[in-house]
Protein backbone atom coordinates (compact mmCIF):
# COMPACT_ATOMS: atom_id res chain seq x y z
CA UNK A 1 0.00 0.00 0.00
CA UNK A 2 2.74 2.42 1.02
CA UNK A 3 4.56 1.60 -2.18
CA UNK A 4 1.45 2.30 -4.18
CA UNK A 5 0.94 5.69 -2.56
CA UNK A 6 4.61 6.46 -3.18
CA UNK A 7 4.20 5.64 -6.83
CA UNK A 8 1.07 7.73 -7.15
CA UNK A 9 2.78 10.78 -5.61
CA UNK A 10 5.74 10.26 -7.90
CA UNK A 11 3.34 10.06 -10.84
CA UNK A 12 1.55 13.26 -9.85
CA UNK A 13 4.89 15.02 -9.34
CA UNK A 14 6.06 14.00 -12.76
CA UNK A 15 2.81 15.12 -14.38
CA UNK A 16 3.37 18.56 -12.94
CA UNK A 17 6.73 18.85 -14.67
CA UNK A 18 6.50 20.17 -18.19
CA UNK A 19 8.74 17.48 -19.63
CA UNK A 20 6.46 14.60 -18.65
CA UNK A 21 6.05 12.36 -21.70
CA UNK A 22 2.24 12.55 -21.54
CA UNK A 23 2.24 16.32 -22.09
CA UNK A 24 4.79 16.08 -24.89
CA UNK A 25 2.67 13.54 -26.73
CA UNK A 26 -0.51 15.46 -25.96
CA UNK A 27 0.97 18.77 -27.15
CA UNK A 28 2.17 17.43 -30.46
CA UNK A 29 -1.01 15.41 -31.01
CA UNK A 30 -3.04 18.57 -30.53
CA UNK A 31 -0.73 20.69 -32.70
CA UNK A 32 -0.59 18.25 -35.57
CA UNK A 33 -4.31 17.65 -35.49
CA UNK A 34 -4.92 21.39 -35.85
CA UNK A 35 -2.32 21.74 -38.63
CA UNK A 36 -3.62 18.81 -40.62
CA UNK A 37 -7.32 19.56 -40.18
CA UNK A 38 -7.10 23.22 -41.20
CA UNK A 39 -4.68 22.33 -43.99
CA UNK A 40 -7.02 19.65 -45.31
CA UNK A 41 -10.04 21.91 -45.09
CA UNK A 42 -8.19 24.57 -47.05
CA UNK A 43 -6.98 22.17 -49.75
CA UNK A 44 -10.41 20.50 -50.15
CA UNK A 45 -12.12 23.87 -50.38
CA UNK A 46 -9.67 25.09 -53.01
CA UNK A 47 -9.85 21.85 -54.96
CA UNK A 48 -13.61 22.18 -55.04
CA UNK A 49 -13.48 25.67 -56.54
CA UNK A 50 -10.86 24.67 -59.10
CA UNK A 51 -12.61 21.49 -60.16
CA UNK A 52 -15.88 23.32 -60.54
CA UNK A 53 -14.32 25.72 -63.04
CA UNK A 54 -11.77 23.57 -64.82
CA UNK A 55 -13.57 20.24 -64.88
CA UNK A 56 -17.03 21.74 -64.39
CA UNK A 57 -17.80 19.04 -61.85
CA UNK A 58 -18.28 19.87 -58.24
CA UNK A 59 -16.86 17.45 -55.73
CA UNK A 60 -20.08 17.09 -53.79
CA UNK A 61 -18.63 15.43 -50.73
CA UNK A 62 -16.00 18.08 -50.00
CA UNK A 63 -18.44 20.42 -48.35
CA UNK A 64 -19.59 17.69 -45.99
CA UNK A 65 -16.09 16.47 -45.28
CA UNK A 66 -14.76 19.95 -44.48
CA UNK A 67 -17.73 20.72 -42.26
CA UNK A 68 -17.18 17.47 -40.35
CA UNK A 69 -13.49 18.15 -39.91
CA UNK A 70 -14.42 21.63 -38.73
CA UNK A 71 -16.48 20.24 -35.82
CA UNK A 72 -13.46 18.28 -34.64
CA UNK A 73 -11.04 21.16 -35.10
CA UNK A 74 -13.28 23.66 -33.26
CA UNK A 75 -13.31 21.72 -30.00
CA UNK A 76 -9.70 20.53 -30.14
CA UNK A 77 -8.72 24.11 -31.00
CA UNK A 78 -10.69 25.31 -27.99
CA UNK A 79 -8.54 23.01 -25.84
CA UNK A 80 -5.36 24.47 -27.34
CA UNK A 81 -6.76 27.95 -26.71
CA UNK A 82 -7.33 27.04 -23.05
CA UNK A 83 -3.68 26.08 -22.72
CA UNK A 84 -2.69 29.51 -24.05
CA UNK A 85 -5.27 31.35 -21.95
CA UNK A 86 -6.79 32.72 -25.14
CA UNK A 87 -10.45 32.48 -24.10
CA UNK A 88 -11.98 35.90 -23.56
CA UNK A 89 -13.18 37.08 -20.19
CA UNK A 90 -13.78 40.15 -18.08
CA UNK A 91 -10.71 40.25 -15.83
CA UNK A 92 -10.87 43.74 -14.30
CA UNK A 93 -12.30 42.72 -10.92
CA UNK A 94 -10.24 39.59 -10.45
CA UNK A 95 -7.03 41.39 -11.47
CA UNK A 96 -7.54 43.89 -8.68
CA UNK A 97 -8.13 41.30 -5.96
CA UNK A 98 -5.58 40.28 -3.35
CA UNK A 99 -3.73 37.24 -4.58
CA UNK A 100 -5.35 34.79 -2.13
CA UNK A 101 -8.83 35.77 -3.22
CA UNK A 102 -7.69 35.64 -6.82
CA UNK A 103 -6.55 32.09 -6.29
CA UNK A 104 -9.86 31.00 -4.85
CA UNK A 105 -11.96 32.71 -7.52
CA UNK A 106 -9.83 31.24 -10.29
CA UNK A 107 -10.15 27.79 -8.74
CA UNK A 108 -13.95 28.13 -8.57
CA UNK A 109 -14.15 29.28 -12.18
CA UNK A 110 -11.93 26.39 -13.24
CA UNK A 111 -14.17 23.90 -11.43
CA UNK A 112 -17.21 25.41 -13.11
CA UNK A 113 -15.53 25.18 -16.50
CA UNK A 114 -14.53 21.56 -15.86
CA UNK A 115 -18.12 20.77 -14.85
CA UNK A 116 -19.35 22.11 -18.18
CA UNK A 117 -16.97 20.04 -20.25
CA UNK A 118 -17.54 16.93 -18.12
CA UNK A 119 -21.26 17.31 -18.73
CA UNK A 120 -20.69 17.89 -22.43
CA UNK A 121 -18.57 14.73 -22.57
CA UNK A 122 -21.17 12.58 -20.81
CA UNK A 123 -24.13 13.99 -22.74
CA UNK A 124 -22.32 13.64 -26.06
CA UNK A 125 -21.82 9.93 -25.36
CA UNK A 126 -25.59 9.63 -24.99
CA UNK A 127 -26.01 11.41 -28.30
CA UNK A 128 -23.56 9.05 -29.98
CA UNK A 129 -25.36 6.04 -28.51
CA UNK A 130 -28.63 7.21 -30.03
CA UNK A 131 -26.97 7.86 -33.37
CA UNK A 132 -25.47 4.37 -33.43
CA UNK A 133 -28.78 2.86 -32.42
CA UNK A 134 -30.66 4.71 -35.17
CA UNK A 135 -27.83 4.01 -37.64
CA UNK A 136 -27.81 7.68 -38.69
CA UNK A 137 -25.60 8.50 -41.68
CA UNK A 138 -24.30 11.74 -43.16
CA UNK A 139 -26.24 12.76 -46.31
CA UNK A 140 -23.51 12.94 -48.98
CA UNK A 141 -20.84 10.49 -47.86
CA UNK A 142 -23.01 8.02 -45.99
CA UNK A 143 -20.50 8.18 -43.15
CA UNK A 144 -21.85 7.10 -39.76
CA UNK A 145 -23.03 10.26 -38.03
CA UNK A 146 -21.37 9.29 -34.73
CA UNK A 147 -17.92 9.58 -36.26
CA UNK A 148 -18.60 13.28 -36.69
CA UNK A 149 -20.22 13.86 -33.33
CA UNK A 150 -17.35 12.05 -31.65
CA UNK A 151 -15.48 15.29 -32.30
CA UNK A 152 -17.58 16.79 -29.52
CA UNK A 153 -16.71 14.01 -27.05
CA UNK A 154 -13.01 14.00 -27.84
CA UNK A 155 -12.97 17.80 -27.92
CA UNK A 156 -14.76 18.02 -24.56
CA UNK A 157 -12.20 15.61 -23.10
CA UNK A 158 -9.31 17.66 -24.50
CA UNK A 159 -10.88 20.88 -23.19
CA UNK A 160 -11.34 19.28 -19.76
CA UNK A 161 -7.67 18.31 -19.62
CA UNK A 162 -6.42 21.69 -20.86
CA UNK A 163 -8.64 23.81 -18.62
CA UNK A 164 -7.62 21.61 -15.66
CA UNK A 165 -3.97 22.10 -16.58
CA UNK A 166 -4.40 25.86 -16.97
CA UNK A 167 -6.28 26.09 -13.68
CA UNK A 168 -3.64 24.03 -11.90
CA UNK A 169 -0.84 26.21 -13.28
CA UNK A 170 -2.56 29.40 -12.23
CA UNK A 171 -3.17 27.98 -8.74
CA UNK A 172 0.55 27.38 -8.43
CA UNK A 173 1.28 30.87 -9.67
CA UNK A 174 -0.95 32.35 -6.98
CA UNK A 175 -4.12 32.72 -9.01
CA UNK A 176 -2.78 34.62 -11.97
CA UNK A 177 -4.31 33.40 -15.22
Amino acid at each position, binding site marked *: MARLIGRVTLFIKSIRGGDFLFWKVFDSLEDWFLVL*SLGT*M*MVLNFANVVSRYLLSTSIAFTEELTTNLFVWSCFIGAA*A*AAKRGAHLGFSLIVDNMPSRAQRIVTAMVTLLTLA*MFALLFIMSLDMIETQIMLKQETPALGMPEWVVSMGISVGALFCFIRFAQAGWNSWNKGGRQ
Partner: protein
Amino acid sequence: MFMEPSIFLFLLFGFLLLWNTPIAVGLGMASLVTIYLIDAPLAVFPTTMYASTAKFALLAIPFFILAGVVMEAAGVSSRLIKFADVCVGHIKGGLAIVAVITCCFFAAISGSGPATVAALGSILIPAMVKAGYDKGFSSALMANAGAIGIIIPPSIAFVVYGVIAEVSIGKLFMAGVIPGLVVGLGLAIVSYYISRKRGYGGNGKRASVGEIWVAFKDALWGLMTPVIILGGIYGGIFTPTEAAGVAAVYGLFVGFFVYKELTLPKLKKLLIDSSVGSAVVMLIVSSASLFAWLITTEGAAQMASAAMLEFSSERWVILLIINILVLIAGCFLDAISIFYILLPIFLPIIKMLNVDPVWFGVILTVNVAIGQITPPVGVNLYVACNIANLSLTDISKSVMPFLIASIVALLLITYIPALSLWLPSVLGM
Protein backbone atom coordinates in the same frame (compact mmCIF):
# COMPACT_ATOMS: atom_id res chain seq x y z
CA MET B 1 -39.42 28.40 -10.71
CA PHE B 2 -38.81 31.21 -8.25
CA MET B 3 -38.36 33.84 -10.96
CA GLU B 4 -38.80 34.36 -14.68
CA PRO B 5 -36.33 31.80 -16.12
CA SER B 6 -34.93 34.10 -18.79
CA ILE B 7 -34.26 36.90 -16.32
CA PHE B 8 -32.50 34.34 -14.14
CA LEU B 9 -30.51 33.27 -17.20
CA PHE B 10 -29.28 36.80 -17.93
CA LEU B 11 -28.52 37.51 -14.26
CA LEU B 12 -26.58 34.29 -13.81
CA PHE B 13 -24.62 34.95 -16.99
CA GLY B 14 -23.77 38.46 -15.80
CA PHE B 15 -22.76 37.15 -12.39
CA LEU B 16 -20.48 34.50 -13.87
CA LEU B 17 -18.82 37.08 -16.14
CA LEU B 18 -17.80 39.21 -13.13
CA TRP B 19 -15.33 36.58 -11.96
CA ASN B 20 -13.41 36.27 -15.22
CA THR B 21 -15.26 33.18 -16.35
CA PRO B 22 -14.48 32.67 -20.04
CA ILE B 23 -17.45 34.16 -21.93
CA ALA B 24 -18.13 30.85 -23.66
CA VAL B 25 -18.27 29.01 -20.34
CA GLY B 26 -20.46 31.71 -18.80
CA LEU B 27 -22.96 31.42 -21.63
CA GLY B 28 -22.91 27.63 -21.47
CA MET B 29 -23.14 27.23 -17.71
CA ALA B 30 -25.87 29.87 -17.29
CA SER B 31 -27.89 28.09 -19.98
CA LEU B 32 -27.31 24.65 -18.48
CA VAL B 33 -28.38 25.68 -14.98
CA THR B 34 -31.51 27.33 -16.39
CA ILE B 35 -32.31 24.28 -18.52
CA TYR B 36 -31.97 22.11 -15.43
CA LEU B 37 -34.18 24.40 -13.30
CA ILE B 38 -37.00 24.54 -15.82
CA ASP B 39 -36.80 20.79 -16.43
CA ALA B 40 -35.98 21.12 -20.12
CA PRO B 41 -34.14 18.15 -21.65
CA LEU B 42 -30.36 18.42 -21.14
CA ALA B 43 -29.87 16.35 -24.30
CA VAL B 44 -30.21 19.63 -26.19
CA PHE B 45 -26.72 20.57 -24.94
CA PRO B 46 -24.50 18.35 -27.15
CA THR B 47 -26.88 18.48 -30.12
CA THR B 48 -26.86 22.30 -30.14
CA MET B 49 -23.08 22.42 -29.71
CA TYR B 50 -22.83 20.07 -32.67
CA ALA B 51 -25.45 21.64 -34.93
CA SER B 52 -24.16 25.17 -34.39
CA THR B 53 -20.59 24.30 -35.39
CA ALA B 54 -21.38 21.96 -38.28
CA LYS B 55 -22.26 24.82 -40.64
CA PHE B 56 -20.39 25.24 -43.89
CA ALA B 57 -20.83 29.05 -43.91
CA LEU B 58 -18.94 29.34 -40.61
CA LEU B 59 -15.85 27.77 -42.16
CA ALA B 60 -15.20 31.28 -43.45
CA ILE B 61 -14.05 32.11 -39.90
CA PRO B 62 -10.89 29.93 -39.79
CA PHE B 63 -10.22 30.66 -43.47
CA PHE B 64 -10.36 34.44 -43.15
CA ILE B 65 -8.29 34.36 -39.94
CA LEU B 66 -5.76 32.19 -41.76
CA ALA B 67 -5.77 34.55 -44.76
CA GLY B 68 -5.01 37.46 -42.44
CA VAL B 69 -2.11 35.82 -40.58
CA VAL B 70 -0.69 34.39 -43.81
CA MET B 71 -0.73 37.83 -45.48
CA GLU B 72 1.08 39.29 -42.51
CA ALA B 73 3.72 36.55 -42.40
CA ALA B 74 4.08 36.69 -46.17
CA GLY B 75 5.20 40.31 -45.92
CA VAL B 76 2.07 41.81 -47.45
CA SER B 77 1.30 44.09 -44.51
CA SER B 78 4.74 45.73 -44.44
CA ARG B 79 4.53 46.43 -48.19
CA LEU B 80 1.08 47.95 -47.84
CA ILE B 81 2.41 50.23 -45.13
CA LYS B 82 5.34 51.27 -47.30
CA PHE B 83 3.02 52.06 -50.21
CA ALA B 84 0.70 54.17 -48.05
CA ASP B 85 3.74 55.89 -46.55
CA VAL B 86 5.15 57.07 -49.88
CA CYS B 87 1.70 58.36 -50.84
CA VAL B 88 0.67 60.38 -47.79
CA GLY B 89 3.58 60.09 -45.32
CA HIS B 90 4.77 63.64 -45.95
CA ILE B 91 1.67 65.48 -44.72
CA LYS B 92 1.13 66.51 -41.08
CA GLY B 93 0.29 63.49 -38.97
CA GLY B 94 1.28 61.46 -42.01
CA LEU B 95 2.07 58.26 -40.19
CA ALA B 96 -1.27 58.34 -38.38
CA ILE B 97 -3.09 58.68 -41.71
CA VAL B 98 -0.93 55.90 -43.13
CA ALA B 99 -2.12 53.74 -40.23
CA VAL B 100 -5.78 54.41 -41.03
CA ILE B 101 -5.35 53.80 -44.77
CA THR B 102 -3.44 50.54 -44.35
CA CYS B 103 -6.01 49.36 -41.81
CA CYS B 104 -8.74 49.94 -44.39
CA PHE B 105 -6.74 47.95 -46.93
CA PHE B 106 -5.80 45.18 -44.58
CA ALA B 107 -9.43 45.01 -43.45
CA ALA B 108 -10.19 43.99 -47.01
CA ILE B 109 -7.90 40.98 -46.54
CA SER B 110 -8.50 40.04 -42.92
CA GLY B 111 -11.90 39.40 -41.38
CA SER B 112 -10.99 40.05 -37.78
CA GLY B 113 -10.34 43.21 -35.76
CA PRO B 114 -7.65 41.94 -33.37
CA ALA B 115 -5.86 40.22 -36.28
CA THR B 116 -5.72 43.55 -38.11
CA VAL B 117 -4.31 45.32 -35.05
CA ALA B 118 -1.74 42.56 -34.57
CA ALA B 119 -0.67 42.53 -38.21
CA LEU B 120 -0.21 46.28 -38.61
CA GLY B 121 0.25 47.51 -35.07
CA SER B 122 3.43 45.54 -34.49
CA ILE B 123 5.03 47.58 -37.30
CA LEU B 124 3.16 50.89 -37.05
CA ILE B 125 3.05 51.51 -33.29
CA PRO B 126 6.86 51.33 -32.85
CA ALA B 127 7.30 53.40 -36.04
CA MET B 128 4.94 56.10 -34.78
CA VAL B 129 6.55 56.20 -31.33
CA LYS B 130 9.96 56.54 -32.99
CA ALA B 131 8.65 59.44 -35.09
CA GLY B 132 7.64 61.28 -31.93
CA TYR B 133 3.96 60.37 -31.64
CA ASP B 134 2.58 59.76 -28.17
CA LYS B 135 2.49 56.05 -27.29
CA GLY B 136 -1.10 56.16 -26.04
CA PHE B 137 -2.23 58.04 -29.14
CA SER B 138 -0.52 55.57 -31.49
CA SER B 139 -1.87 52.44 -29.85
CA ALA B 140 -5.37 53.87 -29.38
CA LEU B 141 -5.44 54.82 -33.05
CA MET B 142 -4.31 51.34 -34.10
CA ALA B 143 -6.87 49.64 -31.87
CA ASN B 144 -9.58 51.84 -33.35
CA ALA B 145 -8.54 51.59 -36.97
CA GLY B 146 -8.19 47.81 -36.56
CA ALA B 147 -11.90 47.66 -35.77
CA ILE B 148 -12.49 48.56 -39.42
CA GLY B 149 -11.30 44.97 -39.98
CA ILE B 150 -14.77 43.63 -39.26
CA ILE B 151 -16.62 46.39 -41.15
CA ILE B 152 -14.84 46.31 -44.50
CA PRO B 153 -15.36 42.86 -46.03
CA PRO B 154 -14.40 40.10 -45.52
CA SER B 155 -15.69 40.09 -41.98
CA ILE B 156 -16.28 37.40 -39.39
CA ALA B 157 -19.08 39.50 -37.90
CA PHE B 158 -20.93 39.63 -41.24
CA VAL B 159 -20.57 35.86 -41.67
CA VAL B 160 -22.07 35.20 -38.25
CA TYR B 161 -24.82 37.80 -38.72
CA GLY B 162 -25.66 36.29 -42.11
CA VAL B 163 -25.92 32.82 -40.56
CA ILE B 164 -28.17 33.96 -37.70
CA ALA B 165 -30.38 36.38 -39.64
CA GLU B 166 -30.39 34.23 -42.80
CA VAL B 167 -29.25 37.10 -44.99
CA SER B 168 -26.94 36.83 -48.01
CA ILE B 169 -23.36 37.12 -46.75
CA GLY B 170 -22.20 38.37 -50.15
CA LYS B 171 -24.68 41.24 -50.01
CA LEU B 172 -23.64 42.09 -46.44
CA PHE B 173 -20.02 42.19 -47.58
CA MET B 174 -20.79 44.72 -50.32
CA ALA B 175 -22.92 46.78 -47.94
CA GLY B 176 -20.00 47.06 -45.51
CA VAL B 177 -17.52 48.69 -47.91
CA ILE B 178 -18.70 52.32 -47.73
CA PRO B 179 -19.52 52.34 -43.98
CA GLY B 180 -16.00 51.01 -43.33
CA LEU B 181 -14.56 53.88 -45.33
CA VAL B 182 -16.78 56.35 -43.46
CA VAL B 183 -15.35 55.13 -40.14
CA GLY B 184 -11.86 55.32 -41.63
CA LEU B 185 -12.46 58.88 -42.81
CA GLY B 186 -13.67 59.87 -39.33
CA LEU B 187 -10.53 58.43 -37.74
CA ALA B 188 -8.30 60.11 -40.33
CA ILE B 189 -9.90 63.51 -39.67
CA VAL B 190 -9.49 63.16 -35.89
CA SER B 191 -5.89 62.02 -36.15
CA TYR B 192 -5.05 64.82 -38.58
CA TYR B 193 -6.59 67.35 -36.21
CA ILE B 194 -4.79 65.98 -33.13
CA SER B 195 -1.50 65.71 -35.04
CA ARG B 196 -1.70 69.35 -36.12
CA LYS B 197 -2.48 70.47 -32.58
CA ARG B 198 0.37 68.49 -31.08
CA GLY B 199 2.75 69.17 -33.94
CA TYR B 200 3.30 65.61 -35.12
CA GLY B 201 5.06 66.18 -38.39
CA GLY B 202 5.18 64.16 -41.55
CA ASN B 203 8.26 62.30 -42.75
CA GLY B 204 9.40 65.52 -44.39
CA LYS B 205 9.97 64.37 -47.92
CA ARG B 206 7.47 64.06 -50.70
CA ALA B 207 8.08 60.85 -52.63
CA SER B 208 8.65 61.09 -56.39
CA VAL B 209 6.30 59.47 -58.86
CA GLY B 210 8.99 56.89 -59.53
CA GLU B 211 9.20 55.92 -55.85
CA ILE B 212 5.43 55.68 -55.62
CA TRP B 213 5.39 53.42 -58.67
CA VAL B 214 8.04 51.09 -57.21
CA ALA B 215 6.16 50.84 -53.89
CA PHE B 216 2.90 50.28 -55.74
CA LYS B 217 4.37 47.45 -57.81
CA ASP B 218 5.79 45.85 -54.69
CA ALA B 219 2.45 46.07 -52.86
CA LEU B 220 0.40 45.03 -55.87
CA TRP B 221 0.08 41.39 -54.78
CA GLY B 222 -1.50 42.52 -51.54
CA LEU B 223 -3.67 45.15 -53.22
CA MET B 224 -5.02 42.43 -55.51
CA THR B 225 -6.47 40.39 -52.62
CA PRO B 226 -9.63 42.42 -52.08
CA VAL B 227 -10.18 42.43 -55.84
CA ILE B 228 -10.02 38.62 -55.88
CA ILE B 229 -12.22 38.16 -52.82
CA LEU B 230 -14.92 40.71 -53.65
CA GLY B 231 -14.73 40.23 -57.42
CA GLY B 232 -14.99 36.47 -57.00
CA ILE B 233 -18.01 36.71 -54.73
CA TYR B 234 -19.71 39.38 -56.83
CA GLY B 235 -18.94 37.55 -60.08
CA GLY B 236 -20.48 34.40 -58.65
CA ILE B 237 -17.22 32.46 -59.04
CA PHE B 238 -17.28 31.36 -55.43
CA THR B 239 -19.28 31.71 -52.24
CA PRO B 240 -18.01 33.92 -49.39
CA THR B 241 -16.84 30.80 -47.55
CA GLU B 242 -14.95 29.53 -50.56
CA ALA B 243 -13.54 33.02 -51.15
CA ALA B 244 -12.03 32.88 -47.68
CA GLY B 245 -10.27 29.62 -48.46
CA VAL B 246 -9.10 30.93 -51.83
CA ALA B 247 -7.71 34.07 -50.14
CA ALA B 248 -5.69 31.87 -47.76
CA VAL B 249 -4.29 29.81 -50.64
CA TYR B 250 -3.49 33.00 -52.56
CA GLY B 251 -1.66 34.37 -49.52
CA LEU B 252 0.38 31.17 -49.25
CA PHE B 253 1.24 31.42 -52.95
CA VAL B 254 2.44 35.02 -52.51
CA GLY B 255 4.32 34.15 -49.34
CA PHE B 256 6.10 31.10 -50.73
CA PHE B 257 6.71 31.99 -54.36
CA VAL B 258 6.57 35.78 -54.77
CA TYR B 259 7.91 37.42 -51.62
CA LYS B 260 9.54 34.15 -50.48
CA GLU B 261 9.20 35.10 -46.81
CA LEU B 262 7.27 32.00 -45.74
CA THR B 263 8.80 28.70 -44.67
CA LEU B 264 7.23 25.38 -43.74
CA PRO B 265 7.87 25.69 -39.98
CA LYS B 266 6.28 29.16 -40.15
CA LEU B 267 3.30 27.68 -41.96
CA LYS B 268 2.81 25.11 -39.20
CA LYS B 269 2.69 27.89 -36.62
CA LEU B 270 0.28 29.94 -38.76
CA LEU B 271 -2.10 26.99 -39.11
CA ILE B 272 -2.06 26.34 -35.36
CA ASP B 273 -2.54 30.02 -34.53
CA SER B 274 -5.49 30.39 -36.86
CA SER B 275 -7.10 27.18 -35.62
CA VAL B 276 -6.81 28.43 -32.05
CA GLY B 277 -8.09 31.90 -32.97
CA SER B 278 -11.10 30.53 -34.76
CA ALA B 279 -11.79 27.97 -32.02
CA VAL B 280 -12.08 30.79 -29.49
CA VAL B 281 -14.79 32.33 -31.68
CA MET B 282 -16.42 28.97 -32.40
CA LEU B 283 -16.67 27.91 -28.75
CA ILE B 284 -18.56 31.14 -28.15
CA VAL B 285 -20.71 30.44 -31.22
CA SER B 286 -21.68 27.02 -29.91
CA SER B 287 -22.42 27.94 -26.32
CA ALA B 288 -24.12 31.18 -27.37
CA SER B 289 -26.36 29.09 -29.62
CA LEU B 290 -27.51 27.19 -26.57
CA PHE B 291 -28.23 30.50 -24.85
CA ALA B 292 -30.09 31.79 -27.92
CA TRP B 293 -32.11 28.55 -28.17
CA LEU B 294 -33.14 28.96 -24.56
CA ILE B 295 -34.31 32.57 -24.78
CA THR B 296 -36.21 31.80 -27.98
CA THR B 297 -38.00 28.69 -26.72
CA GLU B 298 -38.68 30.32 -23.37
CA GLY B 299 -40.48 33.12 -25.19
CA ALA B 300 -38.20 35.69 -23.59
CA ALA B 301 -37.02 37.05 -26.92
CA GLN B 302 -40.59 37.65 -28.06
CA MET B 303 -41.44 39.29 -24.74
CA ALA B 304 -38.46 41.62 -24.93
CA SER B 305 -39.20 42.62 -28.50
CA ALA B 306 -42.85 43.23 -27.69
CA ALA B 307 -41.82 45.40 -24.76
CA MET B 308 -39.49 47.44 -26.95
CA LEU B 309 -42.17 47.93 -29.59
CA GLU B 310 -44.62 48.99 -26.92
CA PHE B 311 -42.17 51.63 -25.79
CA SER B 312 -42.00 53.11 -29.26
CA SER B 313 -42.77 52.03 -32.79
CA GLU B 314 -40.88 54.94 -34.25
CA ARG B 315 -38.04 53.61 -36.40
CA TRP B 316 -35.40 56.11 -35.42
CA VAL B 317 -36.19 55.80 -31.71
CA ILE B 318 -35.94 52.01 -31.80
CA LEU B 319 -32.71 52.13 -33.77
CA LEU B 320 -31.29 54.59 -31.25
CA ILE B 321 -32.28 52.37 -28.32
CA ILE B 322 -30.80 49.32 -30.03
CA ASN B 323 -27.57 51.20 -30.71
CA ILE B 324 -27.27 52.30 -27.10
CA LEU B 325 -28.01 48.79 -25.79
CA VAL B 326 -25.43 47.24 -28.09
CA LEU B 327 -22.82 49.88 -27.22
CA ILE B 328 -23.27 49.05 -23.53
CA ALA B 329 -23.17 45.32 -24.23
CA GLY B 330 -20.04 45.94 -26.30
CA CYS B 331 -18.19 47.17 -23.23
CA PHE B 332 -18.48 43.72 -21.64
CA LEU B 333 -18.99 41.21 -24.45
CA ASP B 334 -17.45 40.28 -27.77
CA ALA B 335 -19.17 40.75 -31.12
CA ILE B 336 -20.25 37.14 -31.60
CA SER B 337 -21.92 36.73 -28.19
CA ILE B 338 -23.79 39.99 -28.71
CA PHE B 339 -25.16 38.75 -32.03
CA TYR B 340 -26.35 35.42 -30.64
CA ILE B 341 -27.84 36.86 -27.46
CA LEU B 342 -29.49 39.99 -28.83
CA LEU B 343 -30.45 39.15 -32.42
CA PRO B 344 -33.34 36.85 -31.39
CA ILE B 345 -34.77 39.94 -29.66
CA PHE B 346 -33.96 42.50 -32.37
CA LEU B 347 -34.81 40.62 -35.56
CA PRO B 348 -38.60 40.44 -35.01
CA ILE B 349 -38.63 44.18 -34.25
CA ILE B 350 -36.67 44.95 -37.39
CA LYS B 351 -39.10 42.89 -39.42
CA MET B 352 -42.08 44.70 -37.91
CA LEU B 353 -40.58 48.09 -38.68
CA ASN B 354 -39.59 47.11 -42.22
CA VAL B 355 -35.91 47.80 -41.66
CA ASP B 356 -33.76 46.17 -44.32
CA PRO B 357 -31.92 43.29 -42.54
CA VAL B 358 -28.76 43.99 -44.57
CA TRP B 359 -28.70 47.62 -43.47
CA PHE B 360 -29.40 46.53 -39.89
CA GLY B 361 -26.52 44.04 -40.13
CA VAL B 362 -24.18 46.86 -41.09
CA ILE B 363 -25.40 49.08 -38.22
CA LEU B 364 -24.88 46.29 -35.69
CA THR B 365 -21.49 45.36 -37.11
CA VAL B 366 -20.22 48.95 -36.92
CA ASN B 367 -21.55 49.03 -33.38
CA VAL B 368 -19.86 45.80 -32.24
CA ALA B 369 -16.69 47.00 -33.97
CA ILE B 370 -16.78 49.95 -31.56
CA GLY B 371 -17.30 47.33 -28.84
CA GLN B 372 -13.84 45.99 -29.68
CA ILE B 373 -12.31 49.23 -28.45
CA THR B 374 -14.46 50.04 -25.44
CA PRO B 375 -12.96 49.04 -22.09
CA PRO B 376 -13.06 46.97 -19.94
CA VAL B 377 -13.53 44.18 -22.49
CA GLY B 378 -12.17 45.26 -25.87
CA VAL B 379 -10.15 42.72 -27.82
CA ASN B 380 -8.42 45.32 -29.99
CA LEU B 381 -7.32 47.28 -26.92
CA TYR B 382 -5.75 44.15 -25.45
CA VAL B 383 -3.74 43.51 -28.59
CA ALA B 384 -2.62 47.15 -28.91
CA CYS B 385 -1.69 47.27 -25.20
CA ASN B 386 0.41 44.16 -25.58
CA ILE B 387 2.30 45.58 -28.52
CA ALA B 388 2.91 48.97 -26.91
CA ASN B 389 3.42 47.66 -23.36
CA LEU B 390 0.72 49.96 -22.02
CA SER B 391 -1.89 49.35 -19.33
CA LEU B 392 -5.58 49.27 -20.16
CA THR B 393 -6.09 52.47 -18.14
CA ASP B 394 -3.46 54.39 -20.14
CA ILE B 395 -4.87 53.41 -23.50
CA SER B 396 -8.49 53.97 -22.41
CA LYS B 397 -7.89 57.71 -22.01
CA SER B 398 -6.33 58.10 -25.45
CA VAL B 399 -9.13 56.15 -27.08
CA MET B 400 -11.77 58.82 -26.32
CA PRO B 401 -11.43 61.15 -29.36
CA PHE B 402 -11.41 58.19 -31.75
CA LEU B 403 -14.33 56.63 -29.96
CA ILE B 404 -16.34 59.81 -30.47
CA ALA B 405 -15.45 59.85 -34.17
CA SER B 406 -16.55 56.21 -34.49
CA ILE B 407 -19.83 56.90 -32.74
CA VAL B 408 -20.52 59.85 -35.06
CA ALA B 409 -19.85 57.52 -37.99
CA LEU B 410 -22.20 54.96 -36.43
CA LEU B 411 -24.96 57.56 -36.21
CA LEU B 412 -24.43 58.56 -39.86
CA ILE B 413 -24.62 54.91 -40.91
CA THR B 414 -27.72 54.38 -38.77
CA TYR B 415 -29.63 57.31 -40.19
CA ILE B 416 -28.42 57.30 -43.80
CA PRO B 417 -29.35 53.83 -45.10
CA ALA B 418 -27.96 54.68 -48.54
CA LEU B 419 -24.41 54.49 -47.13
CA SER B 420 -24.96 50.76 -46.70
CA LEU B 421 -27.51 49.94 -49.36
CA TRP B 422 -26.33 51.99 -52.33
CA LEU B 423 -23.39 49.78 -53.34
CA PRO B 424 -25.24 46.45 -53.29
CA SER B 425 -28.14 47.96 -55.22
CA VAL B 426 -25.84 49.46 -57.86
CA LEU B 427 -24.24 46.03 -58.23
CA GLY B 428 -27.71 44.60 -58.70
CA MET B 429 -27.53 42.35 -55.62
